[in-house]
C-alpha cells in the first residue's frame, strides 16, 4: 500500500498530465453534431453574452449593407403579394388568406422567425454560427437557417435557453441534399474546407446539360428546409473521368463572411414526419423478426 502511495507521489505530475489529456480527448471525441458537448449548453450562455456585446459593436459597421439586402428581399416579396394581381373578368381583388387552415385545405407547413447572428467564423474547418434565439423562443434542433437575402446558411445543431448554434454549410461534416433547378436532379452538397465562398456538389449525372450560372435549390426531401429555396449558383463544372457524375463547384448565395440577420425556418410537421419514419423502421424490423 505504501508503495502505491510512493509511486503516486513520485509520478504525480505525469499522472495529472495523463488524466487531463484523457479528459480533454474524451470531451473532443464524444462531441459530434448529434450529441451535446460536455458543458456546452451552459457555456453557450456565457459565450453568447460576450458575443452579443461584440455584435452590437460590429453591427455598426455592417448596417448599411444589411439594410440594402433587406430592402432587396422586401422588394421581391412585395411583388409576390396577391394584392398585386386583379382578375380580369370581374373587378374583385384576390387576397390570400393568412390563417393556418382554409376551406380549400391549405395548411401552413413552415414558419419563419428572424434572428440575429452574434458570432460566425469562416476561418476554421468546422464553422458554426451562433444566433440570439434559443429554446425559450421556440428554436429546436434541426431547424433550417437562411440568410437575410434568402440563401441557405445551415441547420441548428445545439440549443440553449436563449442562444443556438448553427452548423453552417461551410463545415466539413456538413451534408445537404440539394437539386439543380433546371433538371430537378438531386445531389449532395458538402464543403472541402478550403474557400468559404465555394461549396462542392456531387452526384449530378453527366447526362444533365449544365452551364455555369445554373441555380441550385434546396432539395425536396429535407425535413428541415422548405424545398426550392436558393442555395447557390454553379461556378465551375469539373467532369470526373472515373464516374458518370460531375463535380460541381457552387458559389453559395449566402455570404458567410458577412452574416448579420438570418431567418430560422421551422417545419411544423417535423415531429409527425419524424415519428412516421421511426414507426416505419420499427414495423419493418418487427416484420423481419416474425418472418424468421
Amino acid at each position, binding site marked *: 500500500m505504501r508503495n502505491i502511495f510512493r509511486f503516486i507521489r513520485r509520478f504525480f505530475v505525469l499522472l495529472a498530465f495523463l488524466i487531463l489529456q484523457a479528459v480533454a480527448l474524451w470531451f473532443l471525441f464524444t462531441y459530434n453534431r448529434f450529441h451535446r458537448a460536455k458543458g456546452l449548453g451552459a457555456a453557450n450562455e456565457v459565450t453568447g453574452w460576450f458575443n452579443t456585446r461584440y455584435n452590437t459593436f460590429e453591427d455598426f459597421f455592417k448596417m448599411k449593407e444589411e439594410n440594402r439586402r433587406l430592402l432587396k428581399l422586401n422588394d421581391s416579396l412585395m411583388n409576390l403579394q396577391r394584392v398585386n394581381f386583379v382578375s380580369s373578368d370581374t373587378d374583385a381583388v384576390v387576397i390570400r388568406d393568412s390563417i393556418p387552415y382554409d376551406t380549400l385545405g391549405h395548411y401552413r407547413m413552415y414558419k419563419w422567425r428572424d434572428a440575429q447572428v452574434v458570432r460566425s467564423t469562416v476561418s476554421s474547418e468546422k464553422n458554426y454560427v451562433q444566433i440570439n434565439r434559443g429554446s425559450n423562443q421556440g428554436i429546436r434542433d434541426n431547424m433550417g437557417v437562411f440568410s437575410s437575402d434568402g440563401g441557405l446558411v445551415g441547420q441548428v445543431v445545439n440549443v440553449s435557453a436563449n442562444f443556438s*448554434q448553427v452548423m453552417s454549410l461551410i463545415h466539413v461534416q456538413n451534408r445537404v441534399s440539394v437539386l439543380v433547378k433546371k433538371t430537378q436532379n438531386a445531389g449532395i452538397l458538402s464543403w472541402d474546407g478550403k474557400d468559404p465562398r465555394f461549396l462542392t456538389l456531387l452526384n449530378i449525372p453527366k447526362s444533365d446539360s449544365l452551364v455555369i450560372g445554373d441555380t441550385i435549390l434546396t432539395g425536396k426531401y429535407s425535413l428541415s428546409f422548405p424545398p426550392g429555396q436558393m442555395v447557390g449558383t454553379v461556378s465551375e463544372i469539373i467532369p470526373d473521368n472515373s464516374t458518370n457524375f460531375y463535380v460541381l463547384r457552387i458559389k453559395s448565395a449566402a455570404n458567410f463572411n458577412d452574416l448579420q440577420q438570418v431567418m430560422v425556418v421551422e417545419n411544423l410537421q417535423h415531429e409527425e414526419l419524424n415519428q412516421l419514419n421511426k414507426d416505419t423502421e420499427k414495423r419493418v424490423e418487427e416484420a423481419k423478426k416474425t418472418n424468421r
Partner: protein
Amino acid sequence: MSDLLKNIVRFAVFILVQVYVLDQIPPLHQYIIPYIYYLFILWLPFSVSRIGLLVIGFFTGLTLDYFTNTPGLHAAACVLIAYIRPFVINVLTPKDPSEFNYREPSPKAMGWTPYLVYVLVLTIFHHVYLTFLEYLDFGGFLHLMIKVVSTTAISMLLIIVTELLFTRKMKYRTNTA
C-alpha cells in the same frame, strides 16, 4: 500589480484577442490560421508549480474551446505544452529557477536566442498536436505538414511582433526585496 491580477488580465485579453480579432479576420489561406492565445501559458511566472501549469493550461484551452465549439481540442494541446514547458526551460537555462533574476520567461530574462527557441519548440508542439487531432477526422498527411509549418510561421511572427510592441516592464529581483 500583483502577479495574480496581472495574469488574470492577460488571460482575458489573450482569449478575447484570439476569439474576436484573430478568428474574425478573413482567412488569408486555408492553411494559415493565426494563433497567439497560448502565449499566455508561455508567459506564466517561473514560480508556478508543474501541477498549477497543467491545470491553468487545461482551463485556458477549454475556455477557448467553448468559444470555437470544439470542446477538448485546444485544451489537449495546452495541457501538452504546459507539461513540456518546465523541461524546455531547464534545458535552455541550466540553472535553478529560483536563481532567475526575473519572474517570468521573456527575452530580457533569458536572452533573445534561448527565448525564441523556447517559444518555437512549444509552438511546434502545440500546432503539431492540434493539427494532428483535427487530421484524425479530416484532411490528408500533406495537408497536416503544410498546415503545421505555415501556422507555426505565422504564430512566431505574431509572437515576435507582440514581444517588440509590448515590452513587459519587469523588476530586477534582488535579495533585499
